């Protein structure tokens, strides 16, 4: 469904390419985990897919195909057609990803306003529906609230509602749970799993937290310094990592045993 072929991205003034020849594919209905430390190129990869690459300010090459449509070199009009409607994005910090001066509801329905000619009432109805589908309590009331009136978990649910309202094929999740506390994190993961099961939307889940990835993703790709170093079924990668970097990452997961042994 999504196919990235030999993606290279280089920012000026850097010796190393941010993404140095990454090829990846996501099948329909699949959740792919993209793991790696900060600066490994995982976010740049996702941003290339989303069309958020600052094209004038970097060199890039390769191909990104979404159902056969080329995205990396598409012009802005084509991209706008795809953004929101076929690809939804959820960012790391929900507090900063919503316009502080706009009510939640209008932001959730933004995609509909841009891409469809639905009436105001119909948009509102769909937004409330989408907000209820992501388990926001009292969706009608939340519609009228401003971002500062909601908690981080609720904001992230609203973001997810905004990202899936137009029923995209692909959801890009850039560390969507990193800024949330652990209990909320678990709820959001459950929600994402459910969305994936029910609507069959494919997901590219970016994280540096292997534990989270293990819970959610069927397949995992590991990136280091712009390169894809390992890729495979999640369980396989976790139990039999081939690449030394993957082994180090797995070893870095804190466990109870290690804590007791140390100190």
């Amino acid at each position: 469904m999504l196919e990235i072929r030999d993606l290279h991205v280089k920012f000026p003034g850097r010796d190393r390419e941010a993404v140095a020849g990454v090829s990846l594919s996501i099948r329909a209905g699949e959740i792919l985990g993209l793991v790696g430390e900060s600066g490994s190129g995982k976010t740049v990869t996702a941003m290339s897919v989303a069309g958020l690459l600052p094209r004038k300010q970097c060199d890039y090459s390769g191909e990104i195909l979404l159902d056969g449509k080329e995205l990396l070199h598409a012009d802005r009009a084509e991209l706008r057609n795809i953004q929101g409607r076929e690809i939804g994005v959820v960012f790391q910090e929900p507090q900063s990803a919503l316009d502080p001066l706009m009510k939640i509801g209008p932001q959730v329905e933004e995609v509909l306003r841009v891409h469809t000619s639905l009436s105001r009432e119909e948009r509102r109805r769909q937004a409330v529906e989408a907000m209820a589908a992501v388990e926001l309590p009292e969706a009608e009331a939340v519609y009228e609230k401003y971002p500062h009136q909601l908690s981080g978990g609720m904001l992230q649910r609203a973001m997810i509602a905004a990202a899936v309202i137009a029923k995209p094929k692909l959801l890009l999740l850039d560390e969507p749970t990193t800024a949330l506390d652990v209990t909320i994190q678990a709820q959001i993961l459950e929600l994402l799993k459910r969305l994936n099961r029910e609507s069959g939307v494919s997901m590219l889940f970016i994280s540096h937290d292997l534990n989270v990835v293990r819970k959610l993703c069927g397949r995992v790709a590991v990136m280091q310094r712009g390169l894809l170093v390992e890729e495979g079924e999640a369980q396989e990668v976790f139990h039999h990592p081939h690449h030394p970097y993957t082994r180090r990452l797995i070893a870095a997961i804190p466990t109870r045993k290690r804590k007791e042994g140390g100190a």
Partner: protein
Amino acid sequence: MKRRNGFLTAGLVLTCALAALILLGFFWTPYDPNAMAAGPKFGGPSPAHWMGTDNFGRDIFSRVLKGAGATASIALATLAIGAVCGCLAGALTGCFGGPVDELLMRLNDALTAFPNILLALVVISLLEPGKKINVILALGLVFIPSFARVTRTAFASLRDVNYIKSARLMGASNPRILAIHMLPNTAPVLLPALTIGFNNAVLAEASMSFLGIGVTPPDASLGYMLSEAQGMLFAAPWYAAGTGLVIVLMVFSVGLLGEGLRRQDKGVL
């Protein structure tokens, strides 16, 4: 959340009171501001003439009211030109960057290097001195760079904010992002800048008229009246005092308003 903002309240009250007085001055003044011998020559402040009278016996309070109206309307028109053009240029360059941005900003630097009054002087002598509309054009032109700079910074800092990115990712068009998502969020920076701009415009107009290149008689403006008052500083000190007081009040109350707006924003965020 509901903290009291003394600056904002005081600024609003003072500005509104002053604005009401100035508006009143457009329709009604105690005496005809240009009528000679409305009272004694060089009469001091009295119940009949609150700010006294000048060498022709004209009522200074009436003249100050009319003059403040002229000054305020010139300042507002200047502000409108400067703010609209400046904000537009700043928003576009701030949001898109590129070589056009570089070029405009360097031009901006060059313009900023000249004192405002000097620049306005050059512009007005190229146009035709003495006309109100030309004063406005010249001052408006001079005020564009400062607004462009402030707006550019505000928009550039928003460009990479997540909610702008996410609006872009939802397929929103550039005009929509600029107008709906960015502009309201720059208000905390732009509103105080507007108040400061108004004050600068009042002072610039007053200085120009004082130097005799702004509004010319019989139109009264505060700056022109100050230069008149200078000649009779010892015979009628109340003339200069009254006129000066009104300029100070205008700048002070709008300044308070600006400071209040700035603090209000800090309190909310």
